[in-house]
């Protein structure tokens, strides 16, 4: 086996040094009745070539987004990631390093986490950010529990513009934790009256912008109403690229921000691994879950970085920790940081503007098709259209013609009664040919 260095002679010599006659003696604590004598009923080991062939065959049975006109979004976006990002994250010292608990020999990881935290705080317009969460949905669920700890209340109000997967993730964790998370009906027109739901028992209001239908939401009045009732505003996003162009949640009164960072630095990967972003106010930081990196000095007075405020975390606080979370999304956060460092504010704004321009152009083209109606007043790079018939059927039909036309809202929430809503995402990777292919395919499918 190519990954195991010992020869059988070496194994024998080691057993002799240990003073046992056989390897089995080392496993003597396993009860005899439960000890496996033969091999597991699984294939034997395979050469690198053989594994590559088998997995290559599986990969070939999928349609890669980059190979077709592609318009899927709804929480995962296909952006261009510079080649240098993937090269750098594969450096041994990043890829094969552990959590930086020994800061003297992990300053590389710690410094990029400090840069990451600074970038996330700046993008979201918040004072502090943590070193990342698993993904946007779990970050949102953790944000709700964090709000409960801060307000000492147990009731969350969830906007109907929230991505249904995010809403479900929040509701599962809240239910299990014995807290209340009421969800408003799906709100494609962004005209829900969420402020009427906020009362003196409300811990937090959770609002997504751009919402799952692509609408941009002005949260200022909601924040003011929440704060007047002693509640917090949690702002959620699934498309971090939008923050290059739109007012950040921190400037609209958000107390906690939780979102998905995949768009910067990270590919689609069929849903994971992604990188959850979480940011908040400085005075809330002790109730924040997840790792935090902070600046300090070493014994020679040189600047250095360490994981800090660890007493919030499970390995010290155990059953009184702010969360059970242990892992962050280290390497994905690194990819985010490198890509963001390459972009800078200038590049981010340019890419975001291009996303928006292409989306606006496609939306205009689509409204010219009979049977397609744009429902958004505002959007960034994703919008919702109402189509004739069931959008799920339409999307499958178009997939057969080689166009991945978007995500039917009913795939996310079949019970919502919005079977005719199709979510269409456009990024800088979408070409004019792609857009024309979608227009032609939709026109063709809806006319027959």
């Amino acid at each position, binding site marked *: 086996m190519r990954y195991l260095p010992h020869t059988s002679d070496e194994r024998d010599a080691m057993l002799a040094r240990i003073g046992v006659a056989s390897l089995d003696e080392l496993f003597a604590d396993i009860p005899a009745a439960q000890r496996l004598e033969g091999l597991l009923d699984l294939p034997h080991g395979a050469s690198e070539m053989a594994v590559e062939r088998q997995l290559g065959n599986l990969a070939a049975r999928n349609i890669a987004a980059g190979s077709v006109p592609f318009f899927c979004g709804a929480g995962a976006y296909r952006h261009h990631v510079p080649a240098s990002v993937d090269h750098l994250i594969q450096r041994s010292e990043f890829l094969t390093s552990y959590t930086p608990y020994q800061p003297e020999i992990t300053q590389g990881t710690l410094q990029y986490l400090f840069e990451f935290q600074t970038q996330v705080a700046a993008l979201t317009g918040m004072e502090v950010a943590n070193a990342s969460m698993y993904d946007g949905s779990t970050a949102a669920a953790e944000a709700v529990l964090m709000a409960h700890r801060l307000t000492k209340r147990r009731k969350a109000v969830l906007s109907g513009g929230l991505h249904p997967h995010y809403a479900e993730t929040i509701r599962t964790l809240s239910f299990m934790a014995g807290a209340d998370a009421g969800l408003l009906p799906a709100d494609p027109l962004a005209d829900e009256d969420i402020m009427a739901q906020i009362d003196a028992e409300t811990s937090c209001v959770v609002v997504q912008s751009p919402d799952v239908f692509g609408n941009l939401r002005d949260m200022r009045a909601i924040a003011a109403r929440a704060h007047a009732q002693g509640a917090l505003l949690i702002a959620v996003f699934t498309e971090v690229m939008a923050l290059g162009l739109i007012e950040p949640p921190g400037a609209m009164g958000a107390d906690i921000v939780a979102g998905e960072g995949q768009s910067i630095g990270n590919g689609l990967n069929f849903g994971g691994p992604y990188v959850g972003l979480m940011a908040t106010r400085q005075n809330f930081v*002790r109730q924040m879950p997840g790792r935090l990196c902070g600046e300090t000095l070493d014994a020679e007075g040189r600047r250095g970085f360490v994981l*800090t405020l*660890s*007493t919030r975390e499970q390995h*010290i*606080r155990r059953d*009184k920790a702010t969360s059970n979370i242990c892992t962050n999304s280290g390497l994905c956060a690194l990819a985010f940081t490198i890509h963001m460092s390459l972009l800078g504010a200038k590049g981010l704004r340019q890419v975001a503007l291009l996303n928006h321009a292409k989306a606006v152009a496609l939306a205009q083209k689509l409204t010219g098709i009979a049977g397609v109606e744009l429902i958004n007043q505002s959007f960034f790079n994703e919008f919702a259209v109402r189509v004739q018939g069931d959008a799920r059927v339409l999307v499958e039909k178009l997939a057969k013609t080689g166009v991945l036309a978007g995500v039917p809202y009913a795939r996310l929430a079949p019970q919502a009664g919005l079977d005719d809503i199709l979510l269409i995402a456009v990024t800088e990777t979408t070409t004019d040919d792609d857009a024309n292919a979608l227009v032609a395919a939709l026109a063709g499918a809806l006319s027959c």
Partner: protein
Amino acid sequence: MSTVYFTKDHEYISVDGDIGTIGITDHAQQALGDVVFVELPKAGATLARGKEAAVVESVKAASDVYAAASGEVVAVNTALEGAPGMINEDAQGRGWFFKVKLADKAELANLMDAAAYEAFLKTLD
């Protein structure tokens, strides 16, 4: 003249009339190491003996501080919030946590005096 009593959780209460000043002992601050954060009760809060009243944290540990006696919190050492190192420097002096108006002085009979606490510490080694 105040009398000082101790708990097995390494809190002290220094009693002067019906006011008790509560903090952690010098032994506790040494065991904890550099204190980096304290969370103190609010003035006016009513504490029950043995219940969690405050939190004290070092870099690697967090400990609850329990109320050594029942009563209403009448003063809080807010200076600790900006300078938690005072607890390491002078745990049983400037490093006090909060003062309570004792609800029941009879509770003090359950606590150790200085000599008993010294003896108790010896049993821990």
